[in-house]
């Protein structure tokens, strides 16, 4: 692996950052992510800001099955 960090701007929601990161928020608080890829929220709607929780998605009033998780 090169020492260079990779950042991907998805354009539809989060920014993806490669490697474990320390994220400093606007209030100076530092949150740590140990994941190999972290999704940082850019829409400001996440309930887990600074991390994306998919709140950037469209909400629609219609029936849809709700998934579990894996």
């Amino acid at each position, binding site marked *: 692996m090169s020492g260079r960090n990779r950042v*991907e701007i*998805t354009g539809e*929601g*989060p920014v*993806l950052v490669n490697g474990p990161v320390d994220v400093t928020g606007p209030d100076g608080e530092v949150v740590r992510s*140990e*994941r*190999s*890829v*972290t*999704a940082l929220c850019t829409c400001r709607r996440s*309930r*887990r800001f600074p*991390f*994306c*929780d*998919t709140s950037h*998605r*469209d*909400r*629609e*009033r*219609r*029936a*849809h*099955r*709700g*998934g*579990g*998780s*894996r």
Partner: protein
Amino acid sequence: MTLTRQAPAPSTTEPALPAPRGPLSAAVLDALRTGGRPGGALDAVPDDVYGEDAQLTLYCLYELHYRGFAGVDPEREWDPELLTVRRDLERAFLARLREDAPVDDVRGPADVDAEMAGLLTEPTDADGTGVSHHLLRDGEPWQFREYLAHRSMYHLKEADPQAWVIPRLHGAAKAALVTVEHDEYGSGDPERVHARLFAAMMRAAGLDDGYGAYLDLAPAETLAEVTLMSMFGLHRALRGALVGQFAAVELTSSPGSDRLVRAIARMGLGPEVAEFYAEHVEADAVHEQLVRRGVIRPLLAAEPELAADVVFGVRASSFLAERLERRLLGAWGARATSLREPLPPIG
């Protein structure tokens, strides 16, 4: 209920063989128990491949590839007669699924994008008709415990069925899929393995976290979701469908997990119960991106002819998920158990 979390090493004991549910499972389980041949099993393949007898048999035959069963020779995994039974069941299962999840409309990768876009649109909390919506709005702790018992058939081997596809992918698609799997397996931290987080949640909710502990209670609808993944994973020819199944779950999991975190809080079940789903809100927001951009895009760029199978994987897993949801919500609406028998009372 017990809310203590012991620091547990995952159990390494193999599960007991389940009770049969018809002539085919009786013949196959008998062969596994005695070490004998599955005499007569081939003539016993039932008409209803979604039914209890067929799904339990298929589940047990696949289980030989995972952790096996106590007292069963591990070599039975490659017993040609058992594999023949498995093959007959798989052919019937796949034929039914191809009828119930048709993909005649899929022409190429653009149709896969459209299918993914459909999965990314979420209903509002008030409008959703799924199990997580029900649990959020009106769920009761006994229903949540039943939900965990059903889900334990998969989550105690979470990510294992999808690991079979790794050698069937190449280049960028393989690298991205392994990045997701690495996260499912705790990114190197055994305490964070998702299957282990699920086991901890089961204990915190007063359930038995033993591998396979609820197999006898799990109905065919529950087992079918797992046999689907195992079939897709174990067949290189179905690698596109496996990727589609993987995508369907990763794309819908994060909002569903968020509803379950809130449902757990509303039911007063405590944060140690919520940890598994809390982890999945964040993890699957990342996994969604990796699966769509990292796995599907390069896979279809290299092998565009897999587009229809990717969509088939999405639709087949959604079809089976909806069947299970109907069973759960139907039973709970009648204040009855959604399992084959009620859970034993918790101590």
